[in-house]
């Protein structure tokens, strides 16, 4: 089912649109400070592509990801996932949307400390419609040997790979990753990126990775730069570099 990773003959533009945002803004209060995290974002994500969103901290990239994933709501503008309008969706509709279509990977893994690797995955597969077995998901990220370890017994990279397994086990159409390597050293970070690249190819999952690490952009189909809550530019790579070749 995977296309040749090095070459994408049709080009992203010809494929189905998964996400589309228009004039998206988000303002929130942090303590007594009003933060304008997004100030009008227009963006499309296509099926099966791997997108890297780059930006300094405070550029609004996490907020954008959270809104697309239904973790947060916009102050104005619209978000659409395929045919579904997310802009004013109810809490219940957003819950179902997350349950059925989206997988998340967070910078700090957010594993449940009281559950083993296998159980951290199972907690998601138990409520999914068509999940793969937790063991299979963990095998995909190379953790088939550490199924019954608790998060505290795993290294940071391993924990992040459990988080990826948890995100992909329900076979989501979209994987949203917020600084997945932010808390890791470069060697483990690259292992995690390899796992993500592998998922993208093997399962044709649309993946959006948020990072402030320019190097990671080289493994993407497209690189979207954000600055001060706006899209600064979008760059399309001719060729994706395998994560194993990245260095930082």
């Amino acid at each position: 089912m995977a296309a040749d990773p090095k070459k994408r003959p049709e080009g992203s533009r010809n494929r189905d649109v998964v996400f589309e945002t228009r004039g998206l803004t988000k303002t929130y209060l942090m303590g007594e400070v009003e933060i304008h995290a997004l100030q009008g974002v227009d963006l499309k994500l296509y099926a099966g592509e791997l997108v890297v969103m780059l930006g300094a901290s405070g550029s609004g990239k996490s907020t954008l990801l959270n809104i697309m994933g239904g973790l947060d709501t916009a102050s104005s503008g619209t978000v659409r996932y395929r045919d579904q309008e997310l802009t004013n969706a109810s809490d219940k509709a957003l819950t179902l949307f997350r349950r059925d279509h989206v997988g998340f990977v967070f910078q700090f893994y957010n594993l449940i400390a009281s559950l083993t690797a296998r159980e951290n995955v199972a907690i998601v597969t138990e409520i999914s419609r068509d999940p793969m077995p937790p063991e299979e998901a963990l095998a995909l990220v190379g953790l088939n040997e550490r199924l019954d370890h608790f998060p505290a017994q795993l290294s940071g990279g391993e924990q992040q790979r459990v988080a990826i397994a948890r995100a992909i086990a329900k076979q989501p159409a979209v994987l949203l990753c917020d600084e997945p390597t932010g808390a890791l050293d470069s060697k483990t970070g690259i292992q995690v990126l390899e796992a993500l690249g592998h998922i993208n190819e093997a399962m044709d999952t649309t993946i959006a990775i948020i990072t402030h690490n320019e190097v990671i952009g080289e493994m993407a189909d497209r690189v979207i730069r954000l600055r001060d809550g706006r899209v600064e530019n979008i760059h399309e790579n001719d060729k994706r570099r395998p994560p194993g070749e990245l260095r930082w």
Partner: protein
Amino acid sequence: MRTLNRKLLRDLATLKGQAAAIALVIASGVMTLIIAVTTLDALSLTQQRFYEDFHFAEVFADLKRAPESVAGRLRDIPGVNQVETRVKASVRLEVPGFDDPVRGLLLSIPEGREPLLNHLYLREGRLPEPGRAEEVVISDAFAEAHGLRAGDRIEAIIRGRLSTLRVSGTVLSPEHVYQIAPTDLLPDYKRYGILWMNRRALASAYGMEGAFNNVVVSLQSGAAEAEVIDHLDRILARYGGIGAHGRDDQHSHRFLDEELKQLRAQAVILPTIFLLVSAFLLNVVMSRIIRTQREQVAVLKAFGYGNLDIALHYGMLTGLIVLLGSVLGIGFGAWAASGLAAIYTEYFRFPEMSFRLQGWVVFLAVAVAAGAAMLGTLRAVWGAVRLPPAEGMRPEPPARFRRGWLERSALRHWLDQPARIILRNLGRHPLKSSLSVLGIAMSLGLLVMGAYQLNAVDHMIDTQYREVMRMDLHLTFSDPTPARVHSELRHQPGVLAVETYRSVPVRLLAGHREYRTSILGMDEQPYLRQLLDGRQRPQGLPPEGLLLTDYLAQDLGLRVGDEVRVEIQEGHRQTVTVPLVGLVDEPLGVGAYMQRPALNRLMREGPAVTGAWLMIDSGQQRALFDSLWDLPGVASIGMISEAERNIREYMDDTILMFALVFVLLATSIAFAVVYNNARIAFAERSRELATLQVLGYSRGEVSWILVGEILLLTLVALPFGWLIGTGFAWALNQAFSMDMFRVPLVITPGAYGFATAVVLTASVAAAVLVVRRLHRLDKVAVLKAVE
């Protein structure tokens, strides 16, 4: 098992300290309700069954002497069901091997068979055989106190003649569930016994052949008791009747009723206070525990768990804790209640205790605890799920900090950085801090209430026996005796002081209210039996007019200056009007008092007395007793020190037992609250504290921030706790005031001190536990992980 449930169990294991503390609070609340209600239920159920099964009479009348033929007229009174005439005799007993004076009450039973009313429950042996004049059955408590068995012999002085009696069995009677001598407040089974013998034998010994001096009656259903009593009084008046009365004025029943009333008060007020306090604490603690799981809630939501799933998950967490607490509370509550019920059988002589655990009590207790805990849980869960998950995963925004007034005051120069952090931490969540303070204050309040009970009872007994009853012996005479008996008593061996009194049974009437008691006619300035005024100072008696115990006056709705109608129940049996001239403050019993000459005038008699109080040289007690027994007309000798010992024992066994249980529960609640507060404060601050350690603060300095916060909250809570405790004690005091005794609202500094010490100890213990945890904290890991 679903993974979420597995998480539940592991969370519970992680929270085990806190969960155990919360379970303890629940258990305390549940236990209190179960103890109080179950003991009450056991006692009233047992009473009801005993009364029904053993045909307890409903109307009782004493008289001088009436021929048996009058019984027929009594049976014809409309509304009367059964009539049992009896001979009743106060006697002096001598038990082999026991030297103290023993009083006895001899009652007749039909020849060799059970009476129609007030059946006897035969515990051992058999009833006296017909025609056997020397055989008696005795109350089982008296038998137990002296180790008497069927076949043993005791001696009785009946109308001045010594008879030897043989015990044929031991019995219980619904008429004497509570066995006390007429002048006493508490049972003294060694010095007071009840005996039953065949009618013919007793009548001949007591000079009552073909006659009776006591009658008991049962009523037809729907009959008006008051009318039957009036009717009886009219018939018996010419036979020296001193007024029939219903169960309300029957000695044993009245005391049992008082005890039930007291238990009912306890059953309402104590569990209410405990359950409310524990409900409040559960609410606060559960909501704060859930709040520390804010991030996990966000993760679950991010992966598509719905609000209901999450609410259910945390609801189950709380449910398990509630379940644990309830099981503990029900188990220990039932155990303690059955123990207490057993203690009560010592004072209330029933054949057996009917003990049961009622479903509704268990349900109510668990429902209140669970409801409160769930409310707290769901409140917090709602707060967590209401946030979009993205926000839930973000560290909580730095709260708005302000400089508090303390920091702006002159004190600011002494505040170092950690002190400022403590103050601002507390100041930034005023609601949370207030709730913590309130929680600690409430548990302190419970302790004050418990300690109050323990101390106040002692204070009450001290007042009674140091200030009011200052005599050593209390004599009663079988008939009114000329006042010159005073000098005769004064010259008995070892007698240091004598005061005589006249006691007249009366009915006090005020409006539609009435009360049966006796008026004590005393010396103008009594010394051995003092009357205290509202400020606890001894007062004298004016030449005319009546003094009443303040509680009784209030009960009758009388104020000083009011006229009291007094229905005299002896002699000419007139109703007279006497002004109320003063009030007496006394903790035990209630009474009416006059100067003796005034009472004698009221009775239209010369200077007669019916009893005396003696102060004696205890070294000559033996000789005095021998000599007193030789005096004609001495009906009973009571030893005040024995009475005091009895009442202390009784209080120790019942009220203090309750109070002790409550103090233990309050202590555990106090610890649970303080510990939970500290644990949560630790969870909320661990990142901040780790940061400070990384920045170079020592462990001690960092610990101080946490410990200082715990101690500061505790210190602030102290005055509120004292206030709340005083309120609780007041509520308890209001519920507890009754005829038999009124525990004064005296909260000693010791009670406050004890409660404070417990709470401070709990705080220090909690601080130590938390600091140990702080020292184990992995600083780097905490800093790396998102909050």
